[in-house]
């Protein structure tokens, strides 16, 4: 992530008081940079020493449960809230002390924040009418308004009031109002969470289309992992004001940094089983040994957690080469594309595994479970990732 580029601003360097300052990357392609940003309200710390870089044109999703501080990050970048500590840079410029209107960022709000007394046309053109020095000509405003409305397919609704529009249409007005300013950065605060599921999928596609078209850095806040996984170039997982992991959707899924990320991403969520390391440094799980995908040997007797992705466990009727466990079906959950079975193993452990939606397994059946690569993850006592693991058949 750190481009490691040399700072071009030597003077700023010299002014630094603190020891060990590392040269800031002033590389041209960084649109947003947050350095040690913290925010607290009174005694409540909502954000703790948060670092982030967003490259130009990048689509970064801030993902986390509600109240984790992700919306606060957007408000800090927009200048709607003041950071308690740290620096915010937009397009290479320190903006902590720049008014929101001069920061050149646009924001789409969860509840759209449309001006209810203005027509769609006036809503969309509002940012242009506000532009001073130089003032934008009337004709140019009209032209750009029409253009922005066309991008979001609202041309025929320009004369309506927001109250006469559906939720999806309102969302598109909000989007057009953000686009029209041609800002450096787009901030989107759960923009789809007030829409119904069908519309949400549509709007996800339109948002990505718009993003591909204008190629501007976008910070997108959501608590919905599907949105994060499908839309993001990179995802920042946040919990209680702290970064848990930054990575591509794939990285988060295949190598979750800790148990929180592991459980937050993937559906159904990763099952966690507490166990401990044997005296010889191997990890036993459900009577089998795990083969660790690493050279690191966990310390003997250490408590560890084995994470199992249900979607990486497959049910087979007969024991085959890959099958590791056998057990009895306790429960069956049909989710459409697949079914998930809760299986009680001989050791008494319950695990959930995937099977085809139309499979015939029923409660009480004896089934065999095979693990795909990446099914097992090993975490240490406090929940940080140790390594991935796969099953060793030899013990059988």
């Amino acid at each position: 992530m750190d481009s490691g580029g040399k700072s071009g601003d030597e003077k700023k360097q010299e002014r630094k008081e603190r020891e060990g300052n590392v040269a800031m990357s002033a590389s041209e392609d960084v649109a947003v940079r947050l350095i040690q940003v913290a925010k607290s309200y009174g005694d409540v710390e909502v954000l703790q020493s948060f670092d982030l870089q967003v490259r130009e044109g990048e689509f970064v999703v801030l993902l986390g449960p509600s109240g984790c501080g992700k919306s606060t990050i957007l408000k800090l970048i927009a200048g709607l809230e003041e950071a308690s500590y740290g620096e915010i840079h937009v397009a290479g410029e320190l903006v902590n002390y720049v008014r929101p209107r001069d920061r050149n960022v646009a924001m789409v709000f969860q509840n759209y924040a449309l001006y209810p007394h203005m027509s769609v046309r006036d809503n969309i053109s509002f940012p242009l009418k506000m532009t001073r020095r130089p003032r934008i000509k009337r004709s140019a405003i009209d032209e750009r308004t029409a253009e922005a409305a066309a991008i979001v397919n609202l041309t025929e609704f320009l004369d309506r009031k927001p109250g006469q529009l559906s939720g999806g249409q309102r969302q598109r007005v909000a989007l057009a109002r953000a686009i029209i300013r041609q800002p450096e950065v787009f901030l989107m605060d759960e923009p789809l969470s007030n829409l119904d599921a069908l519309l949400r999928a549509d709007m996800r596609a339109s948002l990505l289309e718009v993003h591909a078209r204008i190629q501007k850095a976008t910070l997108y806040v959501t608590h919905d992992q599907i949105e994060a996984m499908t839309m993001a170039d990179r995802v920042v997982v946040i919990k209680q004001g702290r970064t848990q992991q930054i990575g591509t959707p794939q990285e988060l899924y295949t190598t979750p940094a800790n148990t929180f990320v592991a459980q937050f991403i993937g559906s159904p969520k990763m099952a966690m089983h507490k166990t401990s390391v044997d005296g010889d440094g191997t990890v036993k799980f459900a009577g089998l040994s795990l083969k660790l995908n690493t050279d690191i040997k966990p310390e003997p007797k250490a408590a560890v957690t084995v994470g199992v992705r249900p979607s990486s466990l497959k049910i087979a009727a007969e024991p085959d080469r890959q099958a590791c466990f056998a057990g009895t079906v306790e429960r069956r959950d049909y989710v459409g594309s697949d079914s998930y079975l809760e299986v009680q193993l001989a050791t008494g452990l319950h695990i959930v595994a995937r099977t085809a939606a139309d499979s015939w397994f029923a409660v009480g059946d004896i089934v065999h479970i095979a693990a795909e690569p990446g099914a097992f993850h090993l975490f240490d006592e406090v929940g940080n990732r140790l390594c991935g693991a796969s099953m060793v058949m030899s013990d059988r």
Partner: protein
Amino acid sequence: MNEIRSATSTPQLTLSLEEHRRLRKRYRRRTTLTAYAFLSPNLVVFVAFLLIPVVWLFVSTFRTKGVLGPAEFVGLDNWRDTFTSPLVQTSIRNTVVYSAMAIPAVFVIAMVLALALNAIPRGGAPTRVALYVPTLQPAVVAAFIFTFVLHPDFGVFNFALRGLGRDPINFLGDTSLALPTIAGIEVWRGTGFWTMMFLASLTALPNELYHAAELDGAGAIRRFVRMTLPLLRPTFYFAVIFATIVNLQLFDSVFALTDGGPVNSTITVSLYIYRSLFAFGDIGFGAALSFLLVITVLLLTGLQTFLLRERK
């Protein structure tokens, strides 16, 4: 390797904390200036027509005869006088007795009318206007109307009494009747205002709750006591404090109806202040009495705020 970012070095601030502090201060100063620009029209009139008069008044409490004779410093004499003067005690008693009669009465009547207005299917608009007409009248007008209606010689009331073979009653001329009569007139004038207030709150109540309660078989009275009253708490909270402030300052009606008489039976604190300042020219005393009233009102509203908040 808890977080990926910890693999790379933690980025450092580009400016020193000192510079941040300076820039932040400048930034905040600008927002503060904007805020004061918005406040400035009000601040100007408040300073000119409230703060300066109040300060002048406060200084006067330590002096004697501000207007006519040369002002002399008399220390706390005026303040002591306000505590010893029997007329001050009378006026405080009258004010309190008046408030204790008028406020509950007007609240109950207005609440009943608001509930009735909320219940009727049609005819609400003209009824609201009719009920509000008394509130729209200046106190002098109300005073005149009732001087007239209650007149011992030709008032409707006394016509009726005479018709029943009773002696006419001089409502405003009787020392024990005058204060309740003034309270009644203020209730007449204030009912429209409080009815609108309560009605607005009633119409804003969520319907779903009532439907649920009705399905649960709650009767009308039960619904009112268990749901309406608690839901109206914020309105009552405002109403009690506002009514206290207004009624403790009662002036216009007394001034127009009885001018404190007969035999000071209706003198209120506000009227006594006015009389000290104008009729007696005793500015120091009137000023001290004003502050006594201000302090009382503040203490009472503070106490009410405290009591009403506690029960949340």
